[in-house]
């Protein structure tokens, strides 16, 4: 499988309405789920049950606050990329994902000879040193499974590093991912 498949068709009309209503956020009031219940014209018990069910199914990851990185001083982020042995990628990918400072961790396809990295892990920090330090910790964990590629082929010679870190220097565009209202 190379893509996320659509699960939205499996949603009931009520579930779709719930997502459309809450995907831009919940009001910060004493009873936020009462507001949802009123809007959807269902009971508070139904709202809580549906929310818990969404969480169990992984449709809701969590009910949480998203901070603005920059306001908290997290001005540096690094996309660390790794060329690791395919057979061990799942095992080591899970281990990297468990590191407390990794926010996203995925297996992605290589495109040899231009792109030899298959494991991606994002890190965030307040200084360049901090994200370098995180990168070294990931490296320690992956040391034994990093692929060593020979650089005798001239065309590949610049792509034989076993890992790298791509730091972001500018946000060029940022929008939210949203469920769209179905057009009739």
């Amino acid at each position, binding site marked *: 499988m190379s*893509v*996320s*498949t*659509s*699960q*939205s068709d499996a949603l009931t009309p009520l579930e779709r309405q719930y*997502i459309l209503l*809450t*995907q*831009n956020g*919940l009001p*910060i009031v*004493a*009873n936020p789920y009462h507001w949802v219940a009123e809007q959807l014209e269902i009971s*508070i018990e139904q709202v*809580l049950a549906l929310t818990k069910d969404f969480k169990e199914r992984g*449709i*809701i*990851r*969590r*009910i*949480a*606050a*998203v*901070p*603005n990185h920059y*306001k*908290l001083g997290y*001005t540096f982020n690094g*996309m660390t990329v790794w060329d690791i042995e395919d057979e061990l*990628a799942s095992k080591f*990918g*899970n281990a*990297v994902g468990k590191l*407390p400072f990794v*926010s*996203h961790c*995925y*297996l*992605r*396809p290589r*495109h040899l000879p*231009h*792109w030899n990295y298959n494991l991606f892990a994002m890190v*965030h920090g307040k200084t360049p040193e901090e994200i370098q330090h995180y990168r070294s910790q990931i490296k320690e964990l992956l040391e034994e499974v990093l692929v060593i590629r020979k650089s005798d082929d001239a065309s590949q010679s*610049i792509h034989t590093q076993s890992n*790298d870190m*791509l*730091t*972001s*220097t*500018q*946000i*060029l*565009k*940022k*929008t*939210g*991912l949203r*469920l769209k209202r179905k057009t009739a």
Partner: protein
Amino acid sequence: MDKSSTTVMAELSLLDKGLINLLQHGLPICERPFHQIAQELDSTEDVVIEHLNQLLESKVLSRFGPMFDAACLGGAFTLAALSVPDENFEKVTEQINSFEQIAHNYRRDHAYNMWFVVACESQKEIEQVIKKIEEKTNLPVLNTPKLEEFYVGLYLPV
């Protein structure tokens, strides 16, 4: 440099910091979630609600609510990259950002210096968008859709 990086770091009280840390992990799913949060932070429900609204207003928090798995909202996604010559960077940025299917786009310090998320209704549309990008920019797209997800969960402690 990134215009957002010049944002002044927020001055935060101890309660604010506690709230930011706790609420990134998530809120209990119950009728009075802030009541429970207030108890954990030795505060009251009213004070917690007031502070949270201020944090949203001052944009220290950009959002509060359910974090949906984007894939569950339907559609197809991929992360893709381009290696853009410096002299064309601005022009290519405009070309890429003009696609409504481009959700995020970041400049990164690497030969592949432009990384963007393509969000479409279907896999077929992803392929079409990538083809259009290649035609428009005359650059080959490096397409790296996720094969396996190990972890997603941003936590920035303060």
